[in-house]
């Protein structure tokens, strides 16, 4: 029983982190108009910024600095994508640029920190929670509470606030948005910055309760892309993304319990391939400039 509860907690935690990745990836993709695999760099920047300081305030300060770096990277990336779009680059070429930038980020991290995994578990000295033999570590509690709180905030903002309405308009029609007097380029820039910061938050939460390594970049990109495609079929916006990411987390848990080896990527990639082929009409079409 206790084991199953622990599995459930792990599932809920991974679902939250995948959902954050999916939301960040979604924001970057709608602002840059292509599947932005480079979002995975945001996942690396924040945790690796905070790896060096021992613990305490310095580590927290470095996490905040990492988030700022994430935002800055989002700004630069959006400008590069905008420049390429304005010069008539095709969607496939933008996607290749995105993959190449992801490769650069992954290898820079490998060069500086090595390819072995790192953790930020000492960043927060939170006590563990013990409820009738069920042990929840402070790190896991942090990831769960922060992760789901941010997701609820994102859903609320998307549905009720002006920012959410503007983002919905950005997805539907840029022209319409511009005709209403909104500066589309500014909205796109801030959307990309926010997207990178959200992916960065998921990275730091992952590193607090687990370990990250540079090779995770591809997995993060695939989680974002698969959630983006499947989420759009369920419901436009964060609700669809969260449902899709939760389904991926469930699939990962199920495969890890039933099969020997790590099949999580295989499941995601097979789902992606099947979805692309079978349901391509339902896929949100990224506008070409």
């Amino acid at each position, binding site marked *: 029983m206790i084991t199953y509860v622990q599995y459930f907690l792990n599932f809920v935690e991974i679902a939250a982190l995948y959902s954050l990745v999916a939301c960040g990836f979604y924001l970057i993709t709608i602002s840059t108009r292509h*599947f932005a695999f480079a979002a995975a760099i945001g996942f690396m920047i924040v945790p690796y910024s905070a790896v060096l300081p021992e613990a305490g305030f310095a580590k927290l300060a470095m996490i905040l600095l990492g988030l700022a770096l994430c935002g800055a990277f989002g700004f630069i990336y959006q400008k590069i994508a905008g420049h390429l779009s304005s010069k008539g680059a*095709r969607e496939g070429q933008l996607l290749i*640029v995105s993959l190449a930038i992801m*490769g650069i980020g992954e290898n820079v991290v*490998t060069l500086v920190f090595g390819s072995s995994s790192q953790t930020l578990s000492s960043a927060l000295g939170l006590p563990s929670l013990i409820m009738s033999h069920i042990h929840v570590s402070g790190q896991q509690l942090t990831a769960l509470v922060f992760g789901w709180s941010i997701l609820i905030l994102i859903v609320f903002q998307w549905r009720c606030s002006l920012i959410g309405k503007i983002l919905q308009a950005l997805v539907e029609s840029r022209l319409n948005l511009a005709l209403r007097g909104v500066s589309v380029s500014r909205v796109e820039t801030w959307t990309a910055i926010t997207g990178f910061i959200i992916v960065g938050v998921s990275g730091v939460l992952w590193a607090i309760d687990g370990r990250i390594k540079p090779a995770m970049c591809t997995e993060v990109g695939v989680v974002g892309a698969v959630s983006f495609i499947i989420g759009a079929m369920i419901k436009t916006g964060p609700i669809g993304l969260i449902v899709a990411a939760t389904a991926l987390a469930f699939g990962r848990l199920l495969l890890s319990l039933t099969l020997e080896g790590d099949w999580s990527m*295989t499941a995601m990639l097979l789902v992606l391939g099947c979805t*692309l082929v079978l349901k391509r009409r339902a896929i949100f079409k990224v506008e070409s400039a």
Partner: protein
Amino acid sequence: MIGYFVFNIILLLQLVLLAQTTDLVGGYGGRVGVASVLFAAIGGYAYATSTITIGIGPWKSVALALMATLAIGLFIGWLFLQLRENDFLLATLAGQLGFLEIANNIRILGGPLGIRGIPAPTLGPVLSDSALQAIWLVLPAVIICSIALVKLFGPYARFGSLIRWVRDDELSAHAFGLPVERLQIAIFLFLSFFSGIVGMGIVVAQSYVSPNTFDLWLSITVLTVVYISGTGGNPLWMFAGATILVLINEGLRSLGSFPELVGPLQQITLNVILVAILIFRRRGIAGPEIEFGPSANRLE
């Protein structure tokens, strides 16, 4: 010294062949993807499994691997060629990574440790190192592929004109009664056949195969060669792109005192080159300015 030289020639020829086939479906067919690396992986693994796990002789294994590659190519081509642009690239990427994950988890394919001691098919003069025998597999393939592409896609070639027509305006090609699907499947089978040979060449040259042999890094390398050389242009320019890349890689390898830096530095350099080309000179060295004609798709 001769061994080192031949090994680099093999590497160069493998890159040329993968780039030519990628550009055939991407530059000429209008579907940029990493299908060539996927089929190289399928060909390489099929050959390795056939020779080591099942114990069939090298030449019979070559034939078996090519048949397997063509059969899978027919199915995947039929499935993936319905997709366009982003979707095709994503699907081929998913196919490549998915296949490698399967290879990573299935024992018969060697798992993460891979398959070792893969024999080389003997043909032509025997070289000092059996791994160098791969040149007799790759060299004829490059010659045949280059001649075929030049003949089929030359300025006055009918086949090339039809493929370009489909690329530029698929709807009007359909309207004029062109067998669009069959043309696309034909070039996809061409890609799978020659990519399968490259895959076998790679595993024979290394006498070893593992999921890392055909990873994302190889896909990026092939795309870099394609974009350096110029996509949709003369296929012989792929030799120039591949030569530049091999020289850069060997130059970076000379950082012998810091071996742990070589791999990441090579990958960073290649990715930076790819991004720079796509930002500043998308035509590469000799790619044509592809003008898409008036399209019924756009008029809709």
